């Protein structure tokens, strides 16, 4: 092109204008994302209670994290919850999506209803389910004579976490189902027709034809579900407040509870920073493991 030189000059001035617009955004992001992250690390090096004076104690908090029973328990609970949630939600939502993708009556109404839990806030949903676990299920147990239902699930350290999984799944399934449905719609009908000629059907059809084609959607769902589950907070707040006897304290809840009002500002800051590293490591592992497959999208 003839006016290449002129164009280059034009773009240089252009670059500067773009830079002028970029800088305020970067400052804003640094101020409310990176800076608090760095400050959090700094607080983690102190014995700050959240008020009053404090001293720098070096890496002591970080060392103590690994021997603190309550922190250990919260990590165990959070990971148990996240893994069980991810598996349960993905299995159920995949089955639902396969059903909802068939030629069925009232398809759009059914899809609409199955999506409803996703739009509702976790806190209020938790309060509603809390009533189900505390009153409805025991009443059902009473009426039918089913023993294990007669006591509230939320009252026992053995079952409280299952109740939280049920509520979390009730909401999480909605989202994953809709993503699986959009995945199933990308599978061309010819694939099935070709499969039919080869006499593939049922399970085999699903594993050898459908599943490989919706693999990218599977990995999206895995990552999303895991990430949401690791940050569980609202449901804990409304269902158990971490109880009974701290058996359902998620990491987020522990940071909130002990850090904000428990006088452990410094210690929980260290916990939060380690939690951040854990999230980063998990995300990278997931991307490394699933990333190559996602490229096909």
């Amino acid at each position, binding site marked *: 092109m003839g006016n290449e030189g002129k164009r280059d000059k034009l773009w240089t001035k252009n*670059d500067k204008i*773009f830079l002028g617009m*970029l800088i305020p*955004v970067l400052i*804003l*992001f640094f*101020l*409310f*994302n990176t*800076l608090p*992250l760095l*400050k*959090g690390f700094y*607080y983690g090096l102190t014995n700050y209670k959240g008020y009053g004076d404090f001293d720098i104690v070096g890496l002591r908090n970080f060392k103590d994290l690994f021997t603190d029973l309550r922190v250990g328990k919260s990590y165990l609970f959070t990971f148990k919850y996240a893994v069980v949630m991810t598996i349960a939600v993905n299995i159920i939502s995949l089955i*639902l999506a396969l059903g909802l993708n*068939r*030629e*069925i009556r009232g398809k759009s109404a*059914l899809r*609409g*209803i*199955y*999506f409803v839990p996703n*739009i*509702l*806030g*976790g*806190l*209020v*949903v938790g309060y*509603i389910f809390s*009533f*189900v676990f505390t*009153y409805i299920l025991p*009443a059902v147990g009473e*009426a039918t004579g089913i023993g294990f239902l007669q006591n509230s699930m939320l009252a026992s350290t053995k079952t409280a976490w299952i109740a939280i999984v049920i509520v979390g799944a*009730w909401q999480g399934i909605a*989202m994953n189902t*809709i*993503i699986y449905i*959009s995945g199933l719609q990308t599978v061309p*009908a010819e694939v099935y027709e070709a499969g*039919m000629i080869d006499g593939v*059907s049922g399970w085999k059809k699903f594993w050898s034809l459908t599943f490989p084609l919706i693999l990218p959607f599977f990995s*999206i769902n895995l990552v999303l579900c895991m990430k949401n589950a*690791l*940050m569980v*907070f*609202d449901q804990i*707040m409304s269902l158990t407040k971490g109880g009974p006897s701290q058996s359902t304290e998620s990491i*987020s809840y522990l*940071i909130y509870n002990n*850090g*904000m009002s428990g006088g452990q500002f410094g210690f929980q*800051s260290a916990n*939060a920073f380690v*939690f*951040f590293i854990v*999230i*980063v490591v998990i995300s990278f592992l997931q991307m490394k493991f699933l990333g190559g497959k996602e490229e096909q999208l």
Partner: protein
Amino acid sequence: MGKKGSKGSEGAVGGKAVNNVINVLLAIGCLTILFPIYMTVIIAFKKPSEMTNDVAGALGFPASWSFSNFAEAMRVTDFWRSLGNSLLLTGATVIICILLHSLAGYVIGRKMAKLKLFKVSYFYIVSGMFVPFAVLMMPLVKQTSQMGIANRFGVIVLYVVFFMPMNIMLYSGYLKNIPLALEEAACVDGASIWQTYWKIIFPNMKPMHATVAVLTAMSTWNDVMTPLVIMSGSDVNTLPLAQLNFQSQFGTNYNLAFASYLLALLPILIFYIVCQKQIINGVVNGAVK
């Protein structure tokens, strides 16, 4: 999709029968979704005296459909003010996100390939997605109170920054659908970058605005943690936060509590019924892209 299309994916004989079974199973499955909602409505309309200790006591129809629980719940939780705050926070956040993030997404997306600084900026901001709010929570509480923005304004600022990574990724990704020639033509006609952006790029990003609006609005509307920790101590409630803060006042009056829960769920349920398609599209787009 016509019925002919389904033949291919159904396998041979009995496809119709299989579909009927699936139909019934899916309808039954729906009950697990509808049951908690039904229960909420029923309890919200009942009087405490009707709540006997058996299943029928909680789930049977109320003796009369009176709205007195709702009136009481509105009074106790200061419903209109909470609703106003929720609308303000969500509305302001969505508008600022659409205006600012689309511009930032454009600025970064257009220069990423050419200038390293923009590429680095992109990865710097997008990597913010790995930072959960719980990690930033404590320093942000200190920081916002030091800056004197431990209020609704501060919460909006935090939302705008918190959704920035996701939204910038969505917007700059969408930019690939808008041909560069469009801008260059405007540029040759003497339009400034600013004019070009608002007249050409911004309207062309409309589908992405819808996605961003839905995702941002839903996360903001249902969020509890940010207003809980940032505005704690003030008596400013959002709709979900009010449910948390008034738990003690509900006491064992579940009818009052459920009337309040139903009121808290109603706005988003209505919004969903009106714009179901846009919401589902938005959520899927946001996740898949």
